[in-house]
Each structure stands twice: as structure tokens, then as C-alpha cells.
């Protein structure tokens, strides 16, 4: 009889529809809705002393992109705080400009070259090898994922981003909002390095934690965002009107997704990552952009500087940026500024945090 009851209970449990892990999803959302706090990435060190005779050369993906410009500004601010020489190289997303930057840094005797904000080091292996042979260290900031991607051997180091957590926050948000009934269209340009960890984290979290959730993925290369992005989303929404979330891995795609949602007459909402100011403006002024995971780019620049200084000073390496992700919604988007900026809304706890970490006030 006991066996029968046990079997019956087991069958009953099996017959009950699996439910999404709402508690875990809510906890994740709550955690990253809090104002960011500063967690030291390593032991404090006397940055001014160890950087006294050292210099840094930063090459952004492109200065025309405010995202990269904001990270560069973080590097410049950190260098001014510490008091070492740093040059921010001007580029326009052209390999020739990147190569010229590396050659200039080597010729002028800089100690470290940082390729920041998505500049793919794989494109520059011969130049990087040559620079390292000349004694210049070469690093990358905000390019690879901190947990799922490995830094290639041809680099001296890299300060990486926790893209997996960001992807999970996006997925968790959609689960919470729909009570576990997500039908998501996920979009990404596969050729960009961080796309894979973001995409896999979003889809993986929904698959693992939400049995009733459904995802469809479309790859739209960056160069085709304008011409193919909108029709791809529009037609996906027409083909499946029950899609309730469009989750582009980078929020700049939103400008092509909003008209697709409007023209298709869909009620889908956009949740994404990057905290790009114009997308935060779209959130503030409209209803289609619902949530955005951002990070202070000035903080990213300072955290990248911290990792580079530790490398130059022979300290324990830091491979993960300590810049926390932060959730923007209609409730707090005005804290990002009107119009929004890349640095407002996150607080300025990092400035004091790094001052103490670098022992600048002692």
C-alpha cells in the first residue's frame, strides 16, 4: 500500500506541469535593480608610485561610437587621477587606423596598448606579436566574456565582462513579467565577439528555468541591421503573433525593431543590453522599450585601467571588470539624464572606490 501511495504521488508530481523558477528569476532581477556598489577587484596598491615611469596607449573600436568614446573617457579620467601618461588614439572603425595606432605606440615607446570596446584583437595578430616582441604589453578591455571565452595566447591579458549574467538578467526579466510564459525572439549579430555568450545565456536561461517558454533566434549581421533587421523582426512577428518579447543582444538594434513592432501591430516589448543613451530615451518617451541592462562606461574605463596597471606593476592579474550590471526601467530611467548619458544613473561610488584602491589619498 505504501509503495502504491508513493508511486501515486510520484506520478502526480510527474503529471503536474513544470513551472518556471520564478523565485530565482525574481531574485536575479531584484539584485541588479539595486544601485551598484563597488567591490574591489584586487588588493589595494600604490598606483602613483608604480605608474610613475609608465604609459598607456588606448585604441578604441571607433571614436565615432559614443559607447567607445565613453569608455575612453574613463581611461583618460583614471590616468589623470593617478597621474600617468595615456593617449587615446583616434580611429574610425578602420583596420588601417588600428594598425597605425599600434605602430605609433611601439615607435613612441608606450608600455601598454589596450584595445577597448570590441576591437577584435584577432584582426591584428601580426602587429600585436610585433609590439610584444618590442616589449609592449597588449591587452583588451570589454571584449571577451569573463566565464565562457578564453583570452588568446597572443595577448598579455584582458579585462572581461560578465556577459552571461547580463543575458540571464534579460531572460529572468521576461520570465517575471510574463509569469513564465515567454515567447521570445532573440536577435544578434553572430560575428561580434560578445554575441555568443549573451545569446547563449538568454536562450539557455529560458530553456533551463522556464519549461513553457519558447525562443526563436535570428542572426542579423551588423552591416545588415538597417536593411534586414526590420523586415526580419516584422515578418517573425507576423508569422507568430504570440511573440511577446524581442530580445536584441545589443540595444542599438532597437531603432530597427520599434518600427517593425509598430508596423506589424504587435504588443511585443523590447528588453536588451548596453544602456545606450538613445535607447534609454526611447524607453522614457515610449512604451515599446521596457527594460535595459546598462553599465557605467566611465567605470568600465577605470576598471580597465586598474587591470592594466596591475599587469604593468607585476601584481596579481585581474581578468574580470568589476563594473556591475544595472537595470533601467520606466521607474528609474530619468536618473540616466534627460537626454540620457552613458554614465548617469549608476551613482559615482566607483570614483571613490578606485581612489582608495589605488591609494591616491595616502
Amino acid at each position, binding site marked *: 500500500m505504501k509503495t502504491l501511495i508513493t508511486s501515486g504521488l510520484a506520478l502526480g508530481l510527474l503529471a503536474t506541469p513544470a513551472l518556471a523558477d520564478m523565485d530565482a528569476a525574481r531574485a536575479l532581477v531584484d539584485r541588479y535593480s539595486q544601485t551598484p556598489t563597488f567591490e574591489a577587484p584586487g588588493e589595494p596598491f600604490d598606483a602613483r608610485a608604480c605608474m610613475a615611469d609608465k604609459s598607456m596607449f588606448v585604441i578604441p573600436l571607433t571614436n565615432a561610437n559614443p559607447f567607445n568614446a565613453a569608455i575612453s573617457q574613463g581611461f583618460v579620467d583614471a590616468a589623470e587621477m593617478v597621474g600617468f601618461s595615456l593617449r587615446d588614439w583616434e580611429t574610425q572603425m578602420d583596420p588601417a587606423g588600428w594598425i597605425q595606432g599600434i605602430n605609433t605606440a611601439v615607435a613612441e615607446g608606450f608600455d601598454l596598448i589596450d584595445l577597448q570596446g570590441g576591437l577584435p584583437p584577432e584582426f591584428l595578430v601580426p602587429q600585436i606579436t610585433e609590439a610584444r616582441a618590442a616589449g609592449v604589453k597588449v591587452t583588451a578591455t570589454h571584449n571577451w566574456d569573463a566565464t565562457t571565452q578564453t583570452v588568446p595566447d597572443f595577448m598579455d591579458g584582458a579585462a572581461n565582462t560578465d556577459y552571461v549574467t547580463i543575458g540571464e538578467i534579460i531572460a529572468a526579466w521576461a520570465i517575471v513579467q510574463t509569469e513564465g510564459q515567454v515567447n521570445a525572439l532573440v536577435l544578434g549579430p553572430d560575428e561580434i565577439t560578445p554575441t555568443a555568450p549573451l545569446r547563449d545565456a538568454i536562450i539557455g536561461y529560458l530553456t533551463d528555468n522556464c519549461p513553457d517558454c519558447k525562443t526563436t533566434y535570428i542572426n542579423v549581421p551588423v552591416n545588415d541591421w538597417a536593411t534586414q533587421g526590420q523586415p526580419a523582426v516584422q515578418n517573425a512577428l507576423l*508569422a507568430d503573433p504570440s511573440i511577446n518579447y524581442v530580445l536584441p543582444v545589443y540595444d542599438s538594434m532597437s531603432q530597427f525593431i520599434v*518600427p517593425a513592432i509598430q508596423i506589424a501591430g504587435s504588443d511585443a516589448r523590447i528588453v536588451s543590453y548596453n544602456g545606450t543613451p538613445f535607447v534609454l530615451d526611447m524607453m522614457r518617451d515610449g512604451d515599446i522599450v521596457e527594460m535595459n541592462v546598462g553599465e557605467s562606461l566611465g567605470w568600465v574605463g577605470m576598471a580597465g585601467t586598474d587591470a592594466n596597471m596591475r599587469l604593468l606593476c607585476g601584481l596579481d592579474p585581474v581578468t574580470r571588470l568589476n563594473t556591475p550590471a544595472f537595470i533601467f526601467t520606466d521607474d528609474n530611467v530619468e536618473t540616466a539624464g534627460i537626454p540620457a548619458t552613458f554614465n548617469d544613473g549608476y551613482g559615482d561610488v566607483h570614483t571613490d572606490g578606485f581612489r582608495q584602491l589605488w591609494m591616491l589619498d595616502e
Partner: protein
Amino acid sequence: MDDTQYEARIAALEAKIAALEGAAEAQPPGDGWKGWAERYGLIVAWIAIILILGAFKPAQMFAWNSYASMLGSNAMVVVLTLALIIPLTTGDFDLSIAATMGLSSMIIAVLNVQQGFDIVSAVIVALAVGAVVGAVNAFFILYFRVFSLIVTLGTGYFISGLILWVADGGTVAGVSMGLIKAVILTRVLGIPVGFYYALILTAAIWYLFQHTTLGRRMLFVGRGREVARLSGVNVTRVRAGALVASSVMASFAGVLYTGMRGVADPSSALAFLLPAFAAAYLGSTAIYPGRFNAIGAFVAVYFLSTGIMGLNFLGVDSFVQNLFYGGGLVVAVAISQLFRGRKEMG
């Protein structure tokens, strides 16, 4: 030469060219189906592609909402293609149209969002700037006699730099809801109203090319500049007018592009240059084969976007769309050329 003599010479020239064209276009007995296939082949292919893709995805491919959405979202491409065929008809390339569209979009956003202009004033300024771009193109092409391809390639790059400068490198959101309502949120028969602007412009340019003296003169200038000049046509004025009209229409495409998104960004408009050229050349194989024509361009844009829509419904990878776009264009034009006896394209 007085006006009467001038008009008489133009009339004589028109009659001569009309006779030559009539002779050239006349089909040999028994070959009438070829002429029909040449004129309407693209429309037949359009219907065929709907039926073929509809066999796989009938619920989507045979739904009115699918076409209503597609017609509305491609209105801007139609206008940009129409902008392109005007100078192509007079024998000039305009590679700056996509950049001009982007400049117009950015000017509207910056003036409306950052400078506090009302949306109507911002649109008027954008169209006026378009006219200035056309005038600059015309000045360098016609005064210095530089090949239009080179001039407009240069001005296109210059304008893209200008956009970055005006935009301060960023994307501007928050354009007046009035413009968005006037482009996509207002619907007639379920189709966003932007489509009807494109339809009206198509009809206007068709009328201009087919039923006005100016349209015929533009064609003469494109077919033979020296002959047209010797016949008394003011070639410089016709070419300059076409270049200015092209840039103003490209600016209008920018108005639609901004109204569709409520946002202006510094670079995405540049991606529409190739689709516009593809549609212009594909369109020149249909309706009035051998000539850049408005109805052909209109059909070409929607033929290509119907194919893309069907491929989206089938869930194919994005590279297949590029294969369709590029391959479809080359194959369609090549088949059309076979029907035309491989005559040189206009």
C-alpha cells in the same frame, strides 16, 4: 533662336526619336509574346514567387496583413529608388542619395529633438538642405565637367562625415510623434500611410517621364547629350534639375525613414544605396524595358521585398537573403536581356 523655332526643333526631334524608338520597340511578327514577357515578366515573377512561397507558408504568404506591413515598411526604399532613376534617366549617377537621406534624417532629429524646431519646420529645412546637396553635385558635375560617379562618391563621403558632425557621433531619439503618425501609425486599408506617399510619387514620375515634354527631354539628354544639345535642348539645365530633384527626393526618403523609426542614426541609411540601385536596374527591365521607369522601380522594390518576406517566413538564414537579393537581381536582368536580344542597357 526664337521660342517658336526652338519649340519646332524640339517637336521635330521628339518626332524623330519617337519614330526611332517605335521602330526599335516594334516586335517582329510572331514575336509579340517576347515583348509582353519583357514588359510584364517581373510582375509574373512577382506573382510566381508569392505562389511558390505561399505553397510552403500559406497562412502568412496569403495574409493581407503581411502585404500591408511590407508595403508600408518599404515605402522609403521606393522613394529612394525613384530619386535615383531621375538622374539615371538623364545619364548621371548619384551615389550620394543614401547619404543625403541620412543627412535629412539627422537634420530632422537634431532640429526637432535638440533645437526645439517644430516637426514641419524641421522637415522643410531637411528638404531645403537636400536641394543644396543637389545643387552642389550639379555644380561640380556640370561646371567642372567631372564624371558624376566621382563627384557623388565624394559628396556622399563628405555628407556622411557631415552627419557624424551634426549628430556628434550619436543616435538621436525622440522625434515628434506627429511625424511617426504621418508615416506609419496612420493606416489606410491597413497599410501605413507612408506607402501612399510613395505611390503618389511613383504616379507623378511615371506621368513626368511618359506624358510631358520635360520627361521626353530628360530621356533625350540621357540617350545622347550632344544630339540633344545640337537640337536646342538646354542639357545643363535638364541635368542640373535632375540632380537637384534627386537630392530633394532622397531627403524626402529621409523624412520617411525618420518617421518610421522616430530615431536618426549617423550610418544606417548608407546601407540602402545598393538596394536602391538594385531596384532601379531591375525596374528598368520591366514595364518600359530598357528605360529607368517609375512603375518598374516600384514593382522591383516590392518584388525583392516579397522574396525577403517569404524567406523570413521560411526561417532561412540571413545569408540566403543576400543570395536571393544579389542572385535574383542578376538572374532577372540577364533573362530580360535575353528577351531583348542582348541589346546594350540604357
